[in-house]
């Protein structure tokens, strides 16, 4: 069967997209395709013209299909050939340049052109548009604007819609003063209401665009070229050039001259076919469907598909039913989403609105019978995807309207808890769902603590604890009972930390058993309270503390970190991640001799021997002949470093040397939570000092910035700068002072990032740096005493602390 001839008039986004859709349906075998384009280019993305104007992109970058694409697909392309005549009787088209083509099927996709209103003085003496006046619609327009703008002092843009704003933004980049003249009361009337338009105006003015509202342009001044604008109110504005962005008009004349029905554009049926001629289709901005002419790309894509389905016979029932107008834009760097109405129309239309002018955030939704009929989002469009979908599908909205405007992330609020499905996992460590927490509350446990104990939610890494608390409150209908024990330092003694410290000092309690005997309500010991009390007593009494090993977690009884199979990991000290060949050889020999199953580099720049039996620990330590790395303890752990000044070509401070000094001073200092430190030789922060409990970053001239409260574990937080000090000794002093204050005031297992946030960085600075409380000397002295009382626990290899301390299993004689 012979191929039919498809002729496409118009080579813009609509024409080319329609042909692509035809080709995608095997159209190359059905049609010989001929395309006519008025411009001298392949087809390009007109939306990106504003990028060319602003200089962000080159015109070569915005082509969708280069000329070679037409050849590859066997398409005959006539460029610079605007079609001026359609002979429907003989099915032939003729272009300006005389080229003709016969068709079986014709597609009109001539789009639209810039609307230039009839202004006095618009045309120059030669009858053509005056030099210095431009539309904003084609690559040639852009090239002209850019060339003229470079030589202009002042440019005026007529029109305060999207195109006008983009033109103004682009002109700003070319160094001239930019004025925007708009006839309306506010900018972008098609997409925005008055408050949003006012906010956008403020943003644009800040960027340097001068805006004139409610100004109707009467004429263009100047004889041969532009010298200014005259307005209906009698005022004038001097300028060297004018960009007219007063809207677009469909290129429908070709339809009218061919005898097709044309109202605002060429009228089509649901197959995108002219209502007068079944061999002529029309898509894009020159088509009028059910009274509507669309100027956005999304409707165009839909129309192109319907056309292709129908013309190729893929689906002869394919029908276009119109588009709901929703669009996301970026204007002058402002994110914007707009859909449907901008103002309520009926008495019962409900308006949901939020406005925060100083941040340029504005949100407004118009709801009719529970469904979205209009919306404006400016500044924050995080909810746009959801809302545009709800608008497009006409789907019912949740009753809680607040959640339509905001994505409330963790820590979660009531609105997101309402939305959270029951099967959503709250605690990832222990696999506890929202529903499981609900069941637990229904079972009578009405405090966060009771629910956590029963479900184990929040008992793993602890990062979900606050969320668990909120969910318990939510299930209790906002009336969760607070368990007073949440304020106790340990669960079994009804005292907050400061009161507990006072009581311990008063009674001179130096062992954990003595604390239970004196302060626990019935004098009974409590397993869960023991480690916290031991840690506190060490901090308070240093060398006078009476060490009862049963009060310590297994890690602190055997100075190694227990693993899932009951074996232990051994991490020797390696300050700043610096080691020697001799140490490495000893470590390797130990690993071989004791058949260590895993040798792993830790996150703290050390070497971990994992899977050592309890029985082997003393022998492993002896053979390593290195000090303990304290990798098991709630204590100072380690100090990472980068290369610093020794070899790094960027180093500003000796980070390795400082790390070694820090480790030498603070090793083994007990604390409520572990303390991981780092030093960085320059602000490139290779050792990640800014996300450590304490980090020192060299900034040159022997000066160091001290960061505190950083975290990069289950929580991520950049540390706060405590202060900038001169010299390594000052770093050691400030680090020690902060650590001591943290030891004395933090809750058990409260890491520094939580502690610093709870106290507030200003308060921490006042106490540590400015000595607002007059305790700086006392803190320094207390830390000094603690440092002096620490010894290497791995020396217990030759002096066991308890009976069978390192026996994993004791054989019983028969």
């Amino acid at each position, binding site marked *: 069967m012979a191929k039919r001839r498809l002729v496409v008039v118009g080579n813009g986004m609509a024409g080319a997209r329609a042909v692509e859709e035809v080709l995608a349906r095997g159209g190359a075998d059905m049609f010989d395709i001929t395309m006519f384009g008025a411009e001298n280019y392949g087809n390009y993305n007109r939306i990106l013209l504003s990028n060319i104007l602003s200089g962000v992109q080159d015109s070569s970058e915005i082509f969708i299909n280069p000329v070679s694409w037409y050849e590859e697909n066997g398409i005959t392309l006539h460029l610079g050939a605007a079609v001026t005549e359609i002979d429907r009787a003989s099915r032939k088209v003729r272009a300006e340049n005389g080229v003709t083509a016969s068709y079986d099927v014709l597609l009109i996709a001539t789009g639209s052109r810039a609307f230039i209103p009839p202004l006095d003085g618009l045309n120059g003496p030669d009858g053509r548009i005056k030099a210095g006046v431009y539309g904003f619609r084609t690559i040639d327009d852009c090239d002209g604007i850019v060339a003229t703008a470079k030589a202009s002092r002042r440019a005026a843009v007529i029109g305060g819609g999207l195109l006008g704003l983009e033109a103004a933004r682009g002109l700003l980049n070319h160094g001239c003063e930019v004025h925007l003249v708009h006839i309306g009361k506010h900018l972008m009337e098609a997409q925005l209401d008055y408050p949003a338009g006012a906010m956008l105006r403020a943003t644009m003015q800040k960027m340097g665009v001068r805006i004139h509202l409610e100004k109707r342009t009467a004429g263009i001044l100047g004889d041969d070229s532009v010298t200014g604008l005259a307005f209906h109110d009698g005022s004038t504005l001097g300028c060297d050039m004018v960009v007219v962005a007063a809207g677009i008009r469909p290129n429908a004349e070709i339809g009218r001259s061919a005898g097709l029905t044309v109202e605002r554009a060429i009228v089509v049926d649901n197959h995108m076919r002219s209502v007068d001629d079944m061999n002529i289709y029309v898509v894009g901005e020159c088509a009028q469907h059910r009274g509507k002419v669309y100027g956005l790309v999304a409707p165009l894509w839909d129309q192109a598909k319907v056309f292709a389905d129908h013309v190729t016979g893929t689906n002869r029932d394919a029908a276009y039913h119109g588009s709901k107008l929703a669009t996301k834009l970026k204007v002058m760097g402002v994110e914007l989403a707009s859909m449907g109405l901008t103002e309520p129309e009926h008495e019962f239309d409900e308006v949901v609105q939020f406005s925060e002018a100083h941040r340029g955030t504005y949100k407004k939704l118009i709801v009719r019978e529970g469904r979205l009929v209009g919306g404006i989002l400016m500044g924050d469009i995080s909810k746009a995807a959801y809302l545009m979908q709800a608008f497009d599908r006409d789907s019912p909205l949740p009753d809680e309207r607040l959640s339509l405007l905001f994505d409330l992330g963790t820590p979660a609020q009531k609105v997101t808890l309402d939305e959270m499905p029951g099967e959503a996992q709250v605690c990832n460590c222990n696999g506890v769902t929202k529903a499981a927490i609900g069941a637990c509350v229904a079972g009578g446990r009405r405090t966060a603590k009771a629910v956590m104990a029963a479900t184990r939610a929040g008992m793993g890494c602890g990062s979900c604890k606050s969320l668990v608390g909120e969910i318990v409150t939510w299930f209790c209908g906002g009336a969760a009972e607070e368990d007073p024990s949440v304020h106790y330092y340990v669960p079994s003694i009804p005292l907050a930390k400061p009161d507990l410290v006072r009581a311990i000092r008063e009674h001179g309690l130096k062992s954990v058993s003595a604390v239970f005997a004196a302060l626990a309500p019935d004098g009974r*010991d409590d*397993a869960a309270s023991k480690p916290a009390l031991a840690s506190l007593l060490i901090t308070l009494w240093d060398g006078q503390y009476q060490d*009862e*090993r049963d009060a310590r977690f297994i890690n602190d009884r055997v100075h190694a970190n227990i693993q899932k199979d009951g074996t232990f990991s051994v991490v020797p000290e390696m300050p700043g991640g610096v080691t020697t060949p001799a140490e490495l050889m000893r470590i390797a020999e130990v690993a071989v001799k004791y058949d260590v199953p895993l040798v792993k580099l830790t996150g703290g720049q050390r070497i971990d021997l994992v899977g050592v039996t309890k029985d082997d620990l003393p022998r492993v330590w002896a053979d390593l002949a290195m000090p303990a790395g304290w990798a098991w303890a709630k204590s100072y752990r380690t100090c990472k470093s980068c290369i610093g000044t020794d070899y790094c070509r960027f180093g500003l401070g000796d980070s390795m040397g400082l790390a070694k000094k820090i480790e030498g001073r603070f090793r083994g200092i007990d604390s409520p939570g572990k303390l991981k430190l780092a030093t960085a030789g320059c602000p490139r922060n290779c050792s990640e000092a800014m996300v450590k409990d304490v980090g020192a970053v060299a900034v040159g001239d022997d000066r160091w910035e001290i960061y505190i409260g950083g975290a990069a574990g289950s929580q991520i937080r950049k540390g706060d700068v405590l202060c900038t000090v001169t010299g390594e000794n000052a770093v050691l002093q400030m680090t020690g002072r902060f650590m001591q204050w943290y030891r004395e005031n933090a809750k058990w297992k409260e890491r520094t990032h939580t502690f610093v946030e709870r106290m507030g960085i200003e308060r921490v600075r006042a106490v540590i740096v400015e000595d607002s409380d007059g305790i700086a000397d006392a803190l320094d002295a207390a830390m000094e005493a603690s440092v002096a009382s620490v010894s290497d626990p791995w020396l217990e290899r030759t002096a066991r602390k308890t009976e069978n301390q390192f026996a994993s299993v*004791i054989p019983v004689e028969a």
Partner: protein
Amino acid sequence: MGHLRRIGPISQIPQGEGRTFNVDGMKLAVFHTRAGEIFATQAECPHRGGPLADGLVDAHTVVCPLHDRIYDLRTGQGADCAITTYPVEILNGEIHLLKE
């Protein structure tokens, strides 16, 4: 009638701690509380096999060192699972297991 199986002197277990013993091929966790009582249970936590003898102990409970499961030393009862307990006695400073 049951009989007594001698485990060894009570001094093998520091006060407030536990130790794991191998009695005729069976592992047992034996605890010596600060109040001076002795308890014996299965050696491994039913949750993930944690060594219970390494746990923190008070008058009547042990906390598994791996995931903080808590068990009553007298009954073996935990929050969502239980452990087996074994009757033990102290005779002349020596721990004895009561066997069937």
